[in-house]
């Protein structure tokens, strides 16, 4: 048959009907739906054996034990370790994101050297060469090598400080934080011995004077665990209904600069109702006289806005509790608390008889030192970074030639950007050991990336706020993802090259020695256990009064502030710590009223808004003498009037797309002050101004 048009049409029609009667089209359609589950660009999940390994979180404070679930050799999730006493199965959002952070786009994959303002990748041999040459050139010259460390609990500090001492420098500094401030007040000002620890598990009534105990202060996860078990009644005094106050029995609204005065007024009432309180404490009579004479309670009433009756009944509550515990500290867990606040809070505990007893303050011994030629731990803690930077910026101190940054990001997290950046930039050569391209690494001349905590052996001795001395060690959970190295081991090698033998072949040997000295079982330590010891230090040189203290109390009554609104910095673990930025999964937990696009929110109540001419959604500038931030307004009635809450953790300019350029950096609003009487350098929450930029949408 010739294929004419009709024939062709018949053929086609026949073909279609015939094919329809075969399985072919139906199979193809069915197959297509299976293809829709298996497009090549959708990530595949390789299967494997599931097991878990213990790890020690080291992403800034607090450090505690967690468990990492692995599939074959890939870590996939992090969860709590029920066997680790510091956390007992709890985990915070940052640590829960830590496995993803291992693969953060901002990880530094190999050593970097800066030439002509750009980083170029170099090998470890080259990097070590450069470092050894530089250090050899500075050996023996006093104070030319300095170090800032953000990891307060690791033995690696001994290597760093020991190296510095061997090179002729004592300029070892911990990044300012709660520990350094407590150290200054308790040890320097009050003559106390040891670390202050808080035994919340033994307390029946906890009064927080500022610290966001259940979110961002000290070992928050441990506090959360205890709170969840109804271990104690919780009262929160502070300027904002933060995460702690959201669940506390009561929120006592008090501005941050009035918390110390509240504590003094409580001291007054305690002494009134229990005249023999703290009778054996040196200086208690002078303190008692002071609070009586200086109408402390009137001061407190004026500054806190609380009635005398309220303060008196709060004092009675503390007295009626069997084991009360008062926790003074900064609002955001960093450096915003004054010596007055710490001193008066600590004294209140002392007068309530809470020193070295169950449920009270514990004076914990310092860790043993294993590097023979390193400074002691108290010596290491006594470095005052803020004062040093002030000196450099003002020209009264010369900048060191070389500066190490270990586990810290001060270009982001220090106050008074102008001053601190000026001081840091005056250092000719800066070296960072950071795992991430953070603001500090970006400003350095040499970057020698450390392993991420999941990739390394490391330890932690008594993280701040721990109730007793404790020691944890963790082995690596995964092989290094990038060409990073264990920096403590690197530094040991370099020390040897510089003829400064630290006495150990490896970091592991050092940690084993530390464990041996403590009497800890190494095998138990590396399988997620913890050594602890409840020895407390007796206080034989404690004093509650001296001239410096009196001056500190006197000067605190002056308040000349140019601006009207109290700034309240607030930290959340989900936005990271001063060392880390916002973790990938943390960003998605930020609600619409916390971050919108790239603009973050400050919170104030309607009355404050009215006074400052702003509304919900207004774009505003928050300005202090030191700097300014841009944000949108979120009306929140859980904020005191004349206060504005600013969240920490925003305003990163490096890192990755999960953190960069989101919001503004609250640290730049803080300034450095030297407190009269205590001589402590700290960054109080300033008063600020709120200026509207444009009308609310």
């Amino acid at each position: 048959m010739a294929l004419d048009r009709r024939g062709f049409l018949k053929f086609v029609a026949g073909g279609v009907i015939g094919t329809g009667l075969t399985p072919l089209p139906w199979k193809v359609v069915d197959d297509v739906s299976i293809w829709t589950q298996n497009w090549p660009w959708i990530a595949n999940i390789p299967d494997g054996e599931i097991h878990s390994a213990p790890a020690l979180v080291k992403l800034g404070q607090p450090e505690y034990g967690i468990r990492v679930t692995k599939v074959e050799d890939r870590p996939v999730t992090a969860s709590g370790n029920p066997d680790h006493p510091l956390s007992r199965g709890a985990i915070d959002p940052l640590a829960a994101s830590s496995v993803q952070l291992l693969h953060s786009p901002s990880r530094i994959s190999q050593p970097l050297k800066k030439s002509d303002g750009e980083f170029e990748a170099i090998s470890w041999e080259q990097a070590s060469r450069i470092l050894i040459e530089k250090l050899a050139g500075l050996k023996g010259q006093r104070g030319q090598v300095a170090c800032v460390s953000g990891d307060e609990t690791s033995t690696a500090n001994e290597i760093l400080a020991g190296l510095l001492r061997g090179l002729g420098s004592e300029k070892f500094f911990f990044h300012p934080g709660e520990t350094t401030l407590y150290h200054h007040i308790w040890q320097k000002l009050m003559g106390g011995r040891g670390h202050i620890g808080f035994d919340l598990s033994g307390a029946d009534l906890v009064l927080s004077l500022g610290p966001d105990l259940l979110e961002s202060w000290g070992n928050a996860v441990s506090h959360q665990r205890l709170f969840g078990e109804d271990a104690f009644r919780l009262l929160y005094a502070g300027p904002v209904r933060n995460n702690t106050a959201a669940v506390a029995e009561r929120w006592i609204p008090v501005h941050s600069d009035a918390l110390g005065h509240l504590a003094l007024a409580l001291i007054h009432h305690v002494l009134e109702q229990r005249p023999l309180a703290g009778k054996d404490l040196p200086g208690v009579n002078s303190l008692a006289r002071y609070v009586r004479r200086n109408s402390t309670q009137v001061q407190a009433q004026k500054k806190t806005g609380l009635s005398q009756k309220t303060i008196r009944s709060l004092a009675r509550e503390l007295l009626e509790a069997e084991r009360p515990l008062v926790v003074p500290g900064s609002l955001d867990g960093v450096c915003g608390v004054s010596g007055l606040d710490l001193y008066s809070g600590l004294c209140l505990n002392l007068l309530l008889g809470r020193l070295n007893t169950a449920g009270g303050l514990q004076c914990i011994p310092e860790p043993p030192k294993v590097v023979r030629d390193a400074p002691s731990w108290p010596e290491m803690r006594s470095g005052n970074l803020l004062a040093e930077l002030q000196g450099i910026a003002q020209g009264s101190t010369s900048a060191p030639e070389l500066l190490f940054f270990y586990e810290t990001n001060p270009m982001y997290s220090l106050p008074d950007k102008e001053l601190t950046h000026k001081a840091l930039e005056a250092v000719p050569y800066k070296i960072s050991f950071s795992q991430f391209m953070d603001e500090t690494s970006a400003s350095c001349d040499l970057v020698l990336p450390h392993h991420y905590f999941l990739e390394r052996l490391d330890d932690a001795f008594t993280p701040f706020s721990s109730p007793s001395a404790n020691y944890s060690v963790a082995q690596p959970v995964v092989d290094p993802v990038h060409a990073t190295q264990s920096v403590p081991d690197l530094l040991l090698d370099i020390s040897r090259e510089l003829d400064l033998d630290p006495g150990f072949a490896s970091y592991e040997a050092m940690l084993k020695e530390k464990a041996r000295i403590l009497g800890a079982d190494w095998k138990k330590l590396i399988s997620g256990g913890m050594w602890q010891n409840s020895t407390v230090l007796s206080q034989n040189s404690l004093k509650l009064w001296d001239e410096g203290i009196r001056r500190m109390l006197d000067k605190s009554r002056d308040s000349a502030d140019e601006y009207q609104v109290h700034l309240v910095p607030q930290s959340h673990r989900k936005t990271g710590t001063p060392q880390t930025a916002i973790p990938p999964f943390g960003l998605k937990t930020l609600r619409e009223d916390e971050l919108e696009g790239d603009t973050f929110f400050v919170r104030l109540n309607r009355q404050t808004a009215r006074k400052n001419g702003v509304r919900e959604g207004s774009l505003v500038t928050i300005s202090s003498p030191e700097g300014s931030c841009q944000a949108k307004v979120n009306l929140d009635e859980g904020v005191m009037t004349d206060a504005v809450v600013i969240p920490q953790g925003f305003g990163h300019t490096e890192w990755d797309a999960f953190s960069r350029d989101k919001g503004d950096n609250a640290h730049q609003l803080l300034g450095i002050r030297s407190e009269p009487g205590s001589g402590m350098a700290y960054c109080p929450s300033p008063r600020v101004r709120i200026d509207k930029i444009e009308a609310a949408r």
Partner: protein
Amino acid sequence: MLEQELIPEGVKRCSPGKFAAWIGILLLFVLWGLCAAFLIYGFGLGVTNLNNYFAFGLWIAVDLIVIALGAGAFFSGFLKYILGIDELKNIINLAVVVGFVCYTGALMLLAFEIGQPLRGWFGYWHANVHSMLTEVIFCITCYLIVLCIEFVPIILENRQIHKKPLFRNLAHNFHITMPLFAAVGTFLSFFHQGSLGGMFGVLFGRPFALREGFFIWPWTFFLFILSAIASGPVFIMLISAIMEKTSGRKLVPFSTKKLLGKISGLLLCIYLFFRILDVWSWASGVLPRTGFTFDEMFNQFYGQWLLWLELGVGGLLPAIILMTPSLRARSWLLYTAAALACLGVVVNRYVFAVQTLAVPVMPFDQWFAYLPSWTEWGTTFMMVGYSALVVSLAYRYLPLFPRERELNA
């Protein structure tokens, strides 16, 4: 063969050039839609303004609207072939074509709407007998087949095709069996028009849409049927009027149009009675039981004005006009009333598709607003362009209107 020879005998059509230009304009809409389709299939539905709160948006609202308005097809068929209202033969072909484009257009939008279009056939193979949407899928598919069967004889009546004896016989046989298909079409349409309403009435998590009802069918089932048959006929009539205005030719006798107007008016009155009763019973029954007041169902954007628009401007007003012979006799009033009746259905479907989802149910939840994106508009206008394309081709090459020759003599 000359293009001229495809045009039905005895009627005039504009020049091929002019027609090509008209088609060209329609193709621009199609092109807009194709650009949108490229983005949708290339990147995902995130390129629209649909979101987790507005899972349904413009496309679902338009689908509901065109299916409601396309009800003119089955209902005219029912009136002509089952009830024997012979005058409707003047418009029945147009009704079939409009029904065809409405239903194919709705399916076209669904190809974009569902997240996994390649799995669309699961609705047939893995059907869930409890779901109203399953009922909709099956009935609409079956009815589309019926519409195709009804369309075929119209195509076969093209001047050139009709010359072939095979096709002429085929067309003749189709015409004989048309009443059967009309009956089947009516039966199927009753169910899917109703189930589309049922889809929303069963949502006991959404007090705005939830309705009590009769056995498994919430009242919205019946209300959607009534509103569809009330507005469908006048929609067809309106289309014919638009075609007359744009072509400059008379196509359908005014008496037929008035008849459709009267039928719609009557049905609109019946519908409004039940719809007003429904609003009252919902406001006094469903709402207090679920803990809401009437005012809480509305905000500024999704306001009570929509309800008054639907019932008043889109309901009572056209009903009055269409029921009054003297008013019905004036063409501009007739067409306005037709448009308003269609508007009433548009608002009703929009409100059920979108406002249902906008109303916050959890007390600490909030209102959001939804406006379609250009990609959603583009695909919708592509459907409109496609529909106009098919209707234009049918008008140009097929004898749609039996009275056209005599009306333009």
